[in-house]
Structures are given as structure tokens and as C-alpha cells.
């Protein structure tokens, strides 16, 4: 039966929602038919998550109606939404790590028996696993699962509750290319059984592949809803951002100098005391960008921290400009000219409650002229902070504003400005464009390239394959704390080969296999 003739599973009309002074959703119409994958496309802050949280029962719309299978509904809590057959898999998983898969599966389930019916639940999980191809061992504690497996648990949770509509919020950001294939297979299986799927993403290639329809949101409003198969990248990007988007990156010829960073057989543990970086060696020269591709959780953070002195090194050596820095205090690394841009900008790189001046001082309180003996010179701090704000385009009402009031893009600009204005020799950038809108992303990439031209050595760790392939002079792939291989010319390698390496295949094998197709 032609899907367009069926009653939509869910129909949202005229949805409006405002927070404080921001209008997150303005008059949005959105519907999903049975058996369809309808993508919500938009930049960060466009209103996608808000809309879905309304559908999910977490927020109450200021105005507008929601109809489920033709009937008007009001959701005052997620329970109502789940009861109506709507299940959401959030970007940040809603799982309890210390509990097992089966316990997470039934937590909060309405009508659950008083004494937990472990056997029945485990059986049902195995059934659903087989049916939808979502393999997972029900008695494992969730903290032991990989991110991809945890996502499977989240999807199973919704299927367990007989959800007819599944909302997937940025599901592929944590998956290898192979796992993305697998997920798409699962989605196709679900639609063939009559489920509807809402796919939220900003990754154009995936969106074009999987969607039946695409709705583009910009600044809280619907720009257009169009059929998925016929859209082009340029068209989608332009509608998403509101102007023409340039995809190419302007990189000058490589002019590498001396070796700045040398890591030799590094071994480091993660927070739980398990090996995270295993016998890892790499080197980066002046004026060169070494990209590092890999799925989140394969030791990238631990490696970046070890290279900035923030994590103890169990074995191996780290040398900066020839000087052995192994075991040195983080302050020594900072003073030696290492700028570290952490992935967690709000939690680690900045102090949200403090203002711009104080956040500048965070990495500069030991340096003259900002410090004078035991005292700080706020005058000099203010001067330099003002210069950074101007040069890096930080949009802020003033220097005395708490940094948490700034948007993500402006926070990143500030942090970038702080790390780069000190003319560092080595820049360790982890996920520098994550969660940023297109404008800020372009800016950050530009800055990194400028630093490269200036002669800094850059380690760019990113899960965005496109970004890391475009910016890097050399590209390494990390898997379970080891380097699978370093590609000397990223233009000569396919995403597929990289994907295999990210999943643990050594470079030689991966290149062969990928070419063989």
C-alpha cells in the first residue's frame, strides 16, 4: 500500500516552544508514516532535539497539536509517549552503567511485576535480538559494553516496549562505518515491519542514503520537506545553513620542519585502571597536521592527556623538541608550549561560572605579564582577552560575563583563542568541531590550518572522517589504544579502508581488502 495514503503514525501540527528568550520551535509541521524513515536535518540549535523531546513527552509545547494514529494526544510525561508507542533513543544514552542489560531493559516499565521476572525478560530480549539482528548478551552489566552495543540496548528497549515509532537522535556519531551499515540494516528491518523511524542527523551522506523524506529545520522553523532519494548534498547543505556552503578545504603545500613531538612505546591506563594506550608510537613535525581517526573510546582521550602531561605514562617516552618530558608535571608541558584543546570544552577546558578574563587566566596564571610574583595582573589579562575576543570573533556582551552564557561556538572560539594566542609549538586538538554550527566549524578548521602554516605541529583527533581526511597531512588510525597504521597521503585511501582499520584491521590487510572490492 502506498505509504502516502496511510494514516501517519504521528502527526505534529503548528508546534511552538520557547525557552526564556529563545524560540526553539516556531510553527512546525511534521509527520511520520508507517514504514518510512523521515529525517530531521539541521544544525545544532535548529530545534531538532526540542521537537523530538516534545514528541517524547519531556517538554510540553506552548501551542500546537500532536496526533497519534489519527487521535489527538497530550503527553505530560515520557510515560504517556511510551504508552502511545513512541520510543526515543537519545544521543546520550539513558542507561544505568552498573545494572545489567536485562535490568536496564525493564527499569521503569509500567505493569512490571513486584519480583523481577528475570527469566522471562532475558528470553524476550534474546527473541527481539534475533528478530532485529541486534545481538547483545542480556546478563552483562552495561558498563562492560561497547558504545555500539549500548546503542543496540537502547533500541531494544524501545522495541521491548512495543514502540511503533522510533526516534534516533544522532545515532551514527558513535559508530564505525561498518556499524553504521549494520544500523541501517536494522532500520530497514524495522521499517519493513511497519515501524516508523525518525532519523535526526547532520551528516548529509547518511541522510541521503537512508531517508524516505527529509525535513530541514533552520532556526526553529521548517525550511522544507522533500523526498530523500532526489536530494543533493549541496542543496541540503544550503537549505540547512541558509547560504552556499563550500566543502573543499584550502590547504597549502606541506612544509614540514623538525620533529616537535616524539612518542615512543607509550602505555597508559584509563580511569578504571585498564590499559587504554598500548605501546603507541608516533611523531609529528613542525608545520604538519597528524590526523588521528578512530571511534570514541579507543584511547584517544587518554593519549591526548598523556601527551599533555595530564595522565601518568606507565611505559614509554614522550619527547618535546628532543627534551624528555615523560613524567613531567602538566605545568611543564604547558610551559614548553603545548596547547591542548580538550573534547569536553564545558567540563574541562573552561570554567562555566567564571568570566572570559578568568578563563583566559586559567592557562596563563603562571606567565608574565599576567602574573607578578604572587599577584595577578587583571589589567594585562583584560587587555589580552579583549584582543583574543576580537581576533577570534567571540560574540559576547562583555569580558565579565560567565562563559556558560556563551553559545558552544563562541566558547570554542574563546578556548581556541586562548590556546593558540600563546604561539604553541604543539597543538593537541581533540574533537575541535564537535557540536559546532557550520560557521564555527569552518573557522576552527581555518585556524588549525593557519597554525600549521605558522609552523606548529598539530595532532588532530576527530571522529569526523571527512574532516580528518581533508585536514591531515598524515593520517593515523587508532583502535583499542594501538595505531593500526599511518597513511602518508590521506587522499589515496578510501573511507572503507579507514573503517576497517578503525574496527581493528591492520593497515596492510585493510588496504588490500578495500581495494579488492
Amino acid at each position, binding site marked *: 500500500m502506498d505509504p502516502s495514503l496511510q494514516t501517519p503514525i504521528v502527526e505534529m501540527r503548528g508546534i511552538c516552544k520557547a525557552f*526564556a528568550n529563545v524560540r526553539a520551535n516556531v510553527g512546525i509541521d511534521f509527520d511520520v508514516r508507517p514504514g518510512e524513515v523521515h529525517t530531521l536535518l539541521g544544525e545544532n540549535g535548529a530545534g531538532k532535539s526540542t521537537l523530538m523531546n516534545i514528541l517524547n513527552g519531556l517538554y510540553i509545547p*506552548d501551542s500546537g497539536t500532536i496526533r497519534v494514529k489519527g487521535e489527538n494526544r497530550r503527553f*505530560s510525561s515520557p510515560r504517556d509517549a511510551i504508552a502511545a508507542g513512541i520510543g526515543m533513543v537519545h544521543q546520550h544514552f539513558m542507561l544505568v552503567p552498573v545494572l545489567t542489560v536485562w535490568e536496564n531493559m525493564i527499569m521503569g516499565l509500567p505493569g512490571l511485576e513486584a519480583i523481577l521476572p528475570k527469566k522471562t525478560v532475558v528470553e524476550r530480549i534474546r527473541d527481539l535480538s534475533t528478530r532485529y539482528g541486534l545481538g547483545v548478551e542480556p546478563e552483562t552489566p552495561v558498563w562492560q559494553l561497547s558504545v555500539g552495543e549500548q546503542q543496540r540496548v537502547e533500541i531494544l528497549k524501545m522495541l521491548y516496549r512495543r514502540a511503533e515509532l522510533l526516534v534516533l537522535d544522532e545515532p551514527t556519531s558513535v559508530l564505525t562505518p561498518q556499524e553504521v551499515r549494520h544500523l541501517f540494516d536494522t532500520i530497514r528491518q524495522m521499517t519493513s515491519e511497519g515501524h516508523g523511524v525518525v532519523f535526526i542527523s547532520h551528516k548529509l551522506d547518511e541522510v541521503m542514503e537512508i531517508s524516505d523524506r527529509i525535513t530541514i529545520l533552520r532556526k526553529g522553523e521548517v525550511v522544507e520537506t522533500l523526498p530523500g532519494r532526489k536530494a543533493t548534498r549541496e542543496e541540503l547543505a544550503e537549505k540547512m545553513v541558509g547560504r552556499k556552503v563550500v566543502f573543499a578545504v584550502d590547504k597549502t603545500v606541506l612544509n614540514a620542519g623538525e620533529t616537535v613531538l616524539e612518542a615512543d612505546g607509550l602505555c597508559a591506563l584509563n580511569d578504571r585502571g585498564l590499559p587504554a594506550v598500548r605501546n603507541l608510537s608516533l611523531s609529528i613535525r613542525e608545520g604538519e597536521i597528524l590526523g588521528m581517526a578512530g571511534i570514541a573510546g579507543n584511547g584517544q582521550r587518554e593519549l591526548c592527556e598523556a601527551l599533555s*602531561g*595530564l595522565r601518568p605514562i606507565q611505559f614509554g617516552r614522550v619527547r618535546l623538541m628532543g627534551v624528555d618530558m615523560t613524567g613531567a*608535571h*602538566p*605545568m611543564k*608541558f*604547558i610551559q614548553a608550549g603545548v596547547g*591542548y584543546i*580538550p573534547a*569536553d570544552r564545558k*567540563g*574541562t*577546558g*573552561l*570554567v*562555566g*561560572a*567564571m568570566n572570559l578574563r*578568568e578563563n583566559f*587566566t*586559567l*592557562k596563563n*596564571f*603562571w606567565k608574565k605579564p599576567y*602574573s607578578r610574583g*604572587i*599577584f*595577578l595582573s*587583571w589589567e594585562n589579562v583584560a587587555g589580552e582577552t579583549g584582543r583574543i575576543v576580537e581576533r577570534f570573533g567571540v560574540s559576547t556582551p562583555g569580558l565579565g*560575563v*560567565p562563559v556558560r*552564557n556563551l553559545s558552544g561556538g563562541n566558547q570554542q572560539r574563546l578556548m581556541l583563542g586562548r590556546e593558540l594566542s600563546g604561539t604553541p609549538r604543539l597543538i593537541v586538538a581533540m574533537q575541535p568541531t564537535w557540536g559546532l554550527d557550520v560557521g564555527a566549524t569552518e573557522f576552527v578548521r581555518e585556524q588549525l590550518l593557519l597554525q600549521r602554516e605558522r609552523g606548529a605541529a598539530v595532532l588532530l583527533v576527530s571522529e569526523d572522517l571527512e574532516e580528518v581526511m581533508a585536514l591531515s597531512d598524515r593520517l593515523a588510525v587508532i583502535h583499542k589504544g594501538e595505531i593500526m597504521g599511518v597513511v602518508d597521503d590521506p587522499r589515496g585511501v578510501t573511507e572503507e579502508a579507514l573503517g576497517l582499520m578503525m574496527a581493528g584491521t591492520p593497515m596492510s590487510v585493510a588496504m588490500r581488502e578495500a581495494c579488492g572490492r
Partner: protein
Amino acid sequence: MSVPFRVERRLDCPAWLNWAIPVGAVATALLAGAVLLFFLGVSPLAAYTAMFRGALGDAWGLSETIVKAIPLTLAGLAVGLSFTMVVWNIGAEGQIVMGALAAVAVVRYAFVDSLPVMFVLMFLSAALAGGLWAGFAGFLKARWNVNEIITTLMMNYIAILLTEYFIYGPWRDPSSLGFPMTAPFPDAARLPLFGGTRVHVGLVLAILLALLFRVLYRWTRWGFELRVIGNNANAARYAGMDYMKNVLLAMFVSGAVAGIAGMTEVAGLQGRIQPGFSSGYGYTAIIVAWLARLNPLGTILVSFLLGALLVGGDTLQVVMRLPLASVQVLQGLILFCVLGGEFFRNYRIVPIGKGE
């Protein structure tokens, strides 16, 4: 569930709120206290008037208020320092006592008949004693992440029992006729007083230290480090700041300042140690610090206010035969209201109009 208003997060806190909230909190607490008094069959009006008159009604009352404000300021600064780093030093009470004991020990075993010398000796030993007492808990936290709330608290009990041991045992004053207490301090160990009041030179110390702390937080590197660590320990690590070293140092300084409070109490005010020497100043200091939002200059002001409350409590005991514990109830109520009031610093209530 539909309510006629919704709760909204604030982006910033308007300046007038910084005053309105503490004042409102104290007012609400007094109101709640009035209700309680009423149910106990005591006229709230009579009680509050008596308290006001006793504490602020005449010069003697005022001077007594200042006398109480001195240890409160010092301990409040001490507690505020550790709280700035989100290290919960609940042990000010014990650190005060240890400081006093150290001063007594100096007088007993190292007496020199010169006030300046005694002052310096007592000051240093009290600071060291209090500093080590707190530093021990700080070490346990820094090294093994042992919960400092419990350790500092346990050390309060131990300190008080230690005092009892000395008062009833080796340091008992033989001429005190059955009442256990230490021998009175000789003149050279007594801090000079102002006029005919009991206000002693500790006042100068308190104000000086408050000013010092203000400079510390605002303009020094260490003050900045403390504030960053208290705000976001991860960012502090990332910035190269040493958490362990700072926990130890902050706890030591915190204990040292509290120890100094103990020294001024014994050398300036009481001249000897009796049972019940530390009348809960260490705990009241927590309220002082919280009410003053860890601001050193605010601490002076709030100490004065809470000192007035304590003197008022004494008056109540004498005039209306209410136990001293009643003041503790009022203190608890004030803290409740201050905690509740902080909510309005971060959120505001917005009525949902019909037109929306």
C-alpha cells in the same frame, strides 16, 4: 499537573538580589522562630525585644556582640577558605580547641614574661596546632580520598575529649576548688583590652585577616587556583593546578586560622580553659561562611549579626529562662532559609498568563 507558574533558569543574577536574599532569609527565619516560640508559650515579641536589647541596646551589649564576633569572623574565614575549594572543613570547632590548648601549653611550658614574645609564641603554636589538626584530615582526603566531613567531625569529638583529659588531669588548676579548669593566664599572656569592655586585640587580628583574605581571593595566584579548583576540579587539573597540594595547604591554613581563633578566645577573653570552652563557634562559623557567601568582608558583617544573635540568646537564658539551645534552633532555621533563598539566585518564578 498544571500550575499557574513555571520555573525558569536565570542567565545572571541581578545585583539587588545579592542583598535581598540573605536579608529575606534571616527575616523569614525570625518569623518561623516566632511561630515556634509562640507554640512554646513564649511571647515572640518579648523574646525578640529582649534579645535585641541585650545585644544591641546598650554599649555593654554591643561590646559583647563584638567579643563574640571575633572568633566567629576568624572561624568563618577559616571555614570559608576550605569551602571555596569545596573541601568541607566541619572541624573548625576542634581546631579552635586545639589552638587554645596549644596556647595553654606554651604558657605552661615556655612562659616568658613579655607580652609581645608570648603573643608571637601563642599565635604560632595555635596556628600550628590548628593547622596540623585540619591538615591531617586534608592529608587523608588528598592521599586516599577519605571523606573529610566525617574525619574533621570525628576530630572535633576527639579534640573536646582531649581538652577534658587535660582539664581534669595534668593541667588541672589545684586552686580552682573542685571546678575543673586550667590555671589562669599570667598577665603577660593576656591580650590587651579596649577600654572597659571585654573586647580584646583579637578584633584587630580578625579584621586584618579578613582584609588579607580578600586580597588573597581577588588578586593572588593562589586565590585564583583555589577558586578554580572549587568551581571545576577537572579544569583545574587541565590548567596544571595541583589538587593534592592545594587540599593539604587549604586545610592547613583553614585549621591554622581557626586555631588562632581559639588562641584569642583563651588569651584575650577567658584566660583559662573550662569545660564548654568552645561554645559551638566552629559550627556557627559554617553558617557565617554560607550566609556571607564565602566573601571575607561579608564574613565580618555576618559575624557581627550572628554574634548579636548569640548575645541575644544569652539574654534569653537569663531573662526568660530559655535554654541556650534555642539559639541553635534559630541558627538552623536561618540556614534553612538561606539555602532555600539561593534557589532564587538561579531560578525565577514566571506566572503563566492566560494569553500565552
